[in-house]
């Protein structure tokens, strides 16, 4: 930890006090709460030989869980990409009664505990549920299938695209659209060639955030998925199963793989946000 503190404490002089205290405390707390537990995870993985590690993370059951986790997260983030843009557009450009309430409600998935979301969605989409009964009549299984998992992930990721696109859309200058129109572009052309390119970085950031959130999600999925190995078992649940069998090293191996992917996604998101801020700031 001393090494970490030494790394971060090289700085320019400032007249403001409290750098040592605030920085020291932040690094201490960060190490204690985040680094230490995460390094325990990675070190536990090293108790396995390479062969054993491979057997855990590339087992058929694990691969089936990756396929579901990443597949459903990708589909859910894509749905959120389209509808997030639509919702942001309607909230910024149009006015209708109750708009402020709707705008505030978009953050519900951030504030509603995942377990509550999980049982509510399951109750809605179960074969005898309010919506599930129609699907049931049509012979489509929603709850306890990959479809249900995707729906839960759509709910969880819903605010991300809306909240990243909304401020950028508010800042798109009307003059640019007027210029496009006066140069003879129709509305669709203006949208595709002027507005959409300005929104693209924020759209991608929102997509990546929703995707990153979805692959780690547990609470809402565990109720609606039915948790059948090879079919509706997501990776976090597989980790949970390993834990319940006291296979800590196996759980840690799967956890390390997920952690690595999450970390790479976080870096990608940071790059996207940097690009987005740059584009966004440059347009002004």
């Amino acid at each position, binding site marked *: 930890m001393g090494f970490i503190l030494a*790394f*971060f*404490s090289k*700085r*320019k002089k*400032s*007249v*403001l*006090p409290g*750098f040592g205290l*605030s*920085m020291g405390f*932040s690094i201490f707390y960060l190490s204690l*709460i*985040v680094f230490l*537990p*995460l390094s*325990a995870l990675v070190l536990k993985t090293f108790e396995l030989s390479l062969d054993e590690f491979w057997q855990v993370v590339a087992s058929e059951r694990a691969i089936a869980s990756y396929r579901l986790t990443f597949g459903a997260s990708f589909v859910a983030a894509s749905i959120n990409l389209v*509808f997030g843009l639509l*919702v942001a*557009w*309607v909230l910024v450009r149009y006015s209708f009664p109750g708009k*402020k309430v*709707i705008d*505030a*409600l*978009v953050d519900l998935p*951030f*504030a*509603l*505990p*995942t*377990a*509550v979301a999980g*049982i*509510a969605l399951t*109750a*809605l989409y179960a074969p005898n549920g309010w*919506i599930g009964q129609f699907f049931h009549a049509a012979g489509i299984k929603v709850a306890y299938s990959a479809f249900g998992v995707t729906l839960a992930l759509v*709910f969880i990721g819903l605010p991300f695209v809306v909240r990243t696109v909304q401020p950028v859309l508010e800042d798109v200058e*009307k003059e640019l659209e*007027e210029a496009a*129109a*006066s140069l003879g572009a129709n*509305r669709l052309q203006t949208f595709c060639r002027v507005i959409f390119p300005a929104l693209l970085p924020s759209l991608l950031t929102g997509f990546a955030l929703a995707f*990153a959130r979805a692959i780690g*999600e*547990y*609470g809402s999925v565990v*109720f609606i998925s039915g948790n059948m190995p090879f079919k509706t078992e997501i990776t*976090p649940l597989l*980790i*949970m199963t390993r834990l319940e069998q006291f296979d*800590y090293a196996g*759980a840690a191996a799967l*956890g390390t793989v*997920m952690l690595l992917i*999450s*970390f790479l996604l*976080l870096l990608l998101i940071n790059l996207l946000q940097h690009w987005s801020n740059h584009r966004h700031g440059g347009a002004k």
Partner: protein
Amino acid sequence: MSSVVIDNTNSTARITIRQATAEPLWLKVLLTTLALSFLTLFLLLPLVIVFGEAFAKGWQVYVASITEPAAAHAIKLTLLAAAIAVPCNVIFGLGASWAIAKFQFRGKQLLITLIDLPIAVSPVIAGLCFMLLFGARGWWGEWLNDHDFAVMFAVPGIVLATIFITFPFVARELIPLMQEQGREQEEAALTLGASGWQTFRLVTLPSIKWALLYGIILCNARAMGEFGAVSVVSGKIREQTNTMPLHIEILYNEYQFAAAFAVSSLLALLALLTLVLKSALQWRAAKDYAEAAKLRAVE
């Protein structure tokens, strides 16, 4: 005469531009309907069904479900965990944002990314990490056992997992705001003879209060609702280590749907309250910001 002609051309030109930068009415209605249907399906209906199912068996069952000893204990434990986790993360958030926003140092961007890390980590993995540290076969499991101090399957583990999950929420709200505000005001206060603590209390704190409050309510909502991480470390012992979300899971798995939704409705109310407070805080912050801008314009 000529001026009238010019005015005419101007106004027709303006009218065509206005039409060219707006969608036709039918498209507006279609898009709005689509967006609202999507939101109804994914936000409104889950919320409605929580309250609908909670009261499905009547008011008495509802009250009984949230006052029975196991539920009352779960509510108390959830409040306790949040009451410890939130202040810890507030102190960290203030410290980290002071260091990051007011000073230039190497690796700042890296530090900001690391603070965000818990958001990207799956809650189950967070719980697993604490299990590996404090569990019976973990790093310190034996030592803790010898000294008769339980972290796993006990309250300290639940608090630690909650702190991990809600770690970034206050810092994330404060860092960008304090970075934008810069350090001129603090420097001025110091030049005028204020102590470091006075500067922080009288200059910095008032200018970040709305963002700080927003961070706190968000952090609190997450702390009270955390499920995955707490579910790994708690052991789910009724009336001992059961938090509200875990209690909901147990009730649901026992097919006591009305009771599960009754406890859920309390957390849903908390979520709604969080959203209302959030809107109110944003409105206040915007008002303050506008007033400050007006003052600057007068100067």
